[in-house]
């Protein structure tokens, strides 16, 4: 009987914080521990604008510092939140239950790049773009390229399994993580994975940690896989009078044995917003835009681009803009970059959902989204990586429309799952999508995930209140406290 179910608010022993701070100051160092209100405010939020004050911030510089801090948190049962640049889109690093934020930004060195092995070992808070630039000096390439690459960290990318525009050809972060050094919930330091591309010795723990959103451990070193840098990148922007033509072109490109580096589409609303507010001149009849990048050896790329242009024309593209130089590429891509600023001029609040459906179902989901919006005042711009089915639905709204957007999103998530898709392609779950976990996951999956969480984090101190549905968390908490009372743990 649900009625009589015991409702206990999850509480952590915040009264222990004062004791913990003293210990942190002596074990990790005075200058690395902060609990003044200004610092606490600065580490209370992420890019979701959710905010919750932590009690203390630790700024470690070495793995040992992290391990010492985690040990203390474990002893005093204080929640821990690992934080990189704080650019996550799902609340992953927000200190929801108070406690200790471990700001790893000082661990930002590239330890080694091995061109011969095609690997690099980095500390977690290397900025993704910085790593890309450094390996490029060795003619190497780290492909995952989230749009926040110039401000987000590798550690954050691993924790959320970030994707990006190159997903169709190169995959996502998980395809490039070979090994990890992780501080576990009790403060022990564990290494997993190898510096070889292949390794099947035992379970793939590395992969388990990728996308774990800080709920299983804290990364202190990351081994990444690199590939040779493609010699040439060329782009073409194709403008169509309807979305169907654009989608058909995308399919045709792949059916013609070409795997483009990116395959981006912008819908009518995105284009309209850029035209009206972004200051870019796009002809009135254009209702869909494709931006296609191809990379590889120069002759091959030129040939591929010719074929792609031919296919665009076959599918009634009205304008084609080809980019040969870096400046021209900038220009071709500027329309895509103009969307975000333009959207904020329409409404102040944005819900950016990163649904992903099988490629064959893109048209279905776009139709369903369009239908769900009929008769509402919501302005929704869809654009994204149609190469891998990852569409970004940007619901622009005002304060009084929050509930309506929530309702629309809930419906769309059901449709997405019914089509065999996922509610989050690359942003993660965090706090923004935990209530939808059961929409996608089966009870069995969730149970196994909970067991894993229990194994790694029996006290529930690692990033509490994230990823798992809130009621599932409560159930676990009740069971845990009962067990404690009965002397089972």
């Amino acid at each position, binding site marked *: 009987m649900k009625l009589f179910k015991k409702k206990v608010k999850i509480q952590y022993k915040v009264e222990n914080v004062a004791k913990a701070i003293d210990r942190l100051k002596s074990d990790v160092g005075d200058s690395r521990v902060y609990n*003044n*209100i*200004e*610092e606490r*405010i*600065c*580490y*209370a*939020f*992420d*890019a*979701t*604008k959710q*905010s919750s004050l932590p009690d203390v911030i630790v700024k470690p510089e070495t793995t040992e510092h992290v391990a010492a801090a985690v040990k203390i948190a474990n002893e005093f049962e204080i929640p821990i939140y690992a934080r990189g*640049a*704080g*650019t996550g889109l799902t609340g992953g690093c927000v200190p929801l239950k108070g406690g200790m934020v471990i*700001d790893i*930004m*000082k661990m*930002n060195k590239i330890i080694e790049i091995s061109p011969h092995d095609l690997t690099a070992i980095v500390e977690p*808070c290397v*900025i993704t*773009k910085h790593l890309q630039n450094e390996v490029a000096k060795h003619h190497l390439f780290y492909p995952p390229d989230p749009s*926040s690459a*110039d*401000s*987000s960290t590798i550690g954050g990318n691993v924790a959320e399994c970030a994707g990006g525009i190159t997903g169709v050809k190169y995959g996502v972060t998980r395809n490039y993580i070979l090994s990890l050094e992780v501080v576990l919930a009790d403060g022990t330091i564990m290494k997993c994975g190898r510096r070889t591309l292949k390794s099947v010795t035992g379970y793939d723990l590395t992969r388990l940690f990728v996308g774990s959103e800080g709920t299983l451990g804290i990364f202190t070193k990351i081994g990444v896989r690199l590939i040779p840098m493609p010699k040439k990148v060329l782009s073409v922007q194709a403008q169509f009078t309807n979305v169907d033509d654009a989608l058909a072109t995308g399919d045709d490109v792949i059916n013609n044995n070409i795997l483009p580096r990116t395959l981006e589409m912008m819908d009518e609303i995105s284009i309209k917003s850029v035209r009206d507010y972004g200051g870019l001149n796009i002809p009135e009849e254009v209702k869909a835009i494709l931006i296609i990048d191809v990379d590889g050896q120069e002759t091959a790329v030129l040939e591929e681009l010719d074929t792609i242009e031919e296919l665009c024309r076959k599918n009634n593209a009205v304008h084609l803009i080809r980019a040969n130089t870096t400046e021209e590429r900038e220009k071709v891509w500027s329309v895509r970059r103009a969307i*975000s*600023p333009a959207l*904020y*001029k329409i409404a*102040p609040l*944005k819900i950016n959902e990163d649904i992903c459906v099988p490629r064959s179902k893109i048209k279905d989901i776009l139709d369903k989204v369009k239908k769900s919006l009929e008769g509402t005042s919501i302005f929704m711009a869809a654009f994204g990586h149609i190469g891998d089915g990852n569409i970004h639905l940007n619901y622009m709204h005002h304060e009084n429309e929050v509930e309506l957007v929530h309702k629309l999103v809930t419906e769309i998530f059901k449709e997405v799952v019914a089509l065999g898709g996922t509610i989050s392609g690359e942003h993660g779950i965090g706090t923004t999508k935990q209530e939808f976990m059961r929409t996608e996951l089966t009870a069995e999956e969730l149970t196994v995930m909970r067991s894993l969480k229990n194994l790694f984090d029996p006290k529930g101190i690692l990033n509490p209140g994230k990823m798992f549905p809130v009621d599932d968390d409560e159930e676990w908490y009740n069971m845990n406290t009962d067990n404690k009372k009965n002397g089972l743990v």
Partner: protein
Amino acid sequence: MSLNWEEEIAKCSMCGKCHSVCPVYLETGEESMVTRGRISLAIALRDHQITMTEALKDSVFSCKKCLRCCKICPTGVNFEVIIQHLLYSVAEEMGIPLLPKLVFRWVLPRRWLFNLMLKCASIGQRIMPAKKRGPMRHLPMMLLGDRWVPALSKGSALKQFGGVHKVANPKMRVAFFTGCLINYVYTDIAEAVIDVLNRLDIEVVVPKKQLCCSLPALSLGDRKAATTIMFKNQDAMKEEKVDAIVAACGSCTKSLKHDYMHVLEDSWQEMSDKVYDISEFIEKFTEYKTEPSEEKLTYHDPCHLFWALDIHDQPRDQLKRSGNYVELEGASNCCGGGGVFTLLHYDLTVKIMNKKIDDIEKSGADIVASNCPGCVMQISDGIAGRDLNVKAMHTIQVLRKSLIDGSKRQLKEEVEMAS
């Protein structure tokens, strides 16, 4: 254009894009030292979650006001407005330190007193046993801590060049706003500006009544002093009937174009439209011929010109016509200079500067030009510290050397004919 800082705060989506460009954050990695962190503190202050404290003051003063964040912000937050509000709040609630306050309120608005003060400093600089490092001195401004300061000029630019510099058939009449660094230290830049403009048939007025642009007062939040100075400058400029106001300092140009609008509002609009950076003015209104030298030239972008006013091609075009131009890697990266910031955070200044000097060394240039005496000073300091064989100069000085005006060319032809 008033300071609606709350509107700007509301625009912030907390995405953290500002992390990628903030020169201070890139060195420190501290959230309290980047735009987004400062905005979260501004919100907390507005909502009375916190009061003005030393830590908050540190966060505010750690901003270089380079305006990179404004330029790249995806939601278009104008952080200049927010940081100015915070600076005013700090000044209102915690007061302005006595010495700068005296300088802003008593010295800056009175040119004779400012002259006197700098004269004393200049004499002091010559008689005191100062540590030397290229053109830089470590004394006598002991108040400035570790900061190296340049040798002060014997006579100020206004004393030497104040007044009208007529030409035979003037195409335009412009006022030259010198700014303090050019007036008291780099008088040769002033000379170059006047000479080049005259040779291009432009009549130049150097209004004797002009004062500091007021940026230092704004940077410490002294609204009262800044307003007084701005009004006096407005009068000084309005007196001279000119077609344009030209400045050779990136920060002065930005201040005259942006900050004056914030304070003087519509009454300054007409003047604001007339303000030009020297390179921008020359490219827009004049035609000139040059004889390029063999020297390898490169260019460093002053933050306020590049990020606030979008001026980057004009000085490069002039350099390309003056010598063997090479692009500097990371040309638009900050050199670390910049008024109040360098005094309070000299350690960070040096870290940021060192990267710039690395890049300059790599470029192999003989001359690194910039359109701001502040950057020239900072880069000279860095070069002197490493004993490099590079000269830091203002672009206009480079152009002055390569410019061939009518009379000079004629002279050359005559010589050729005679031979």
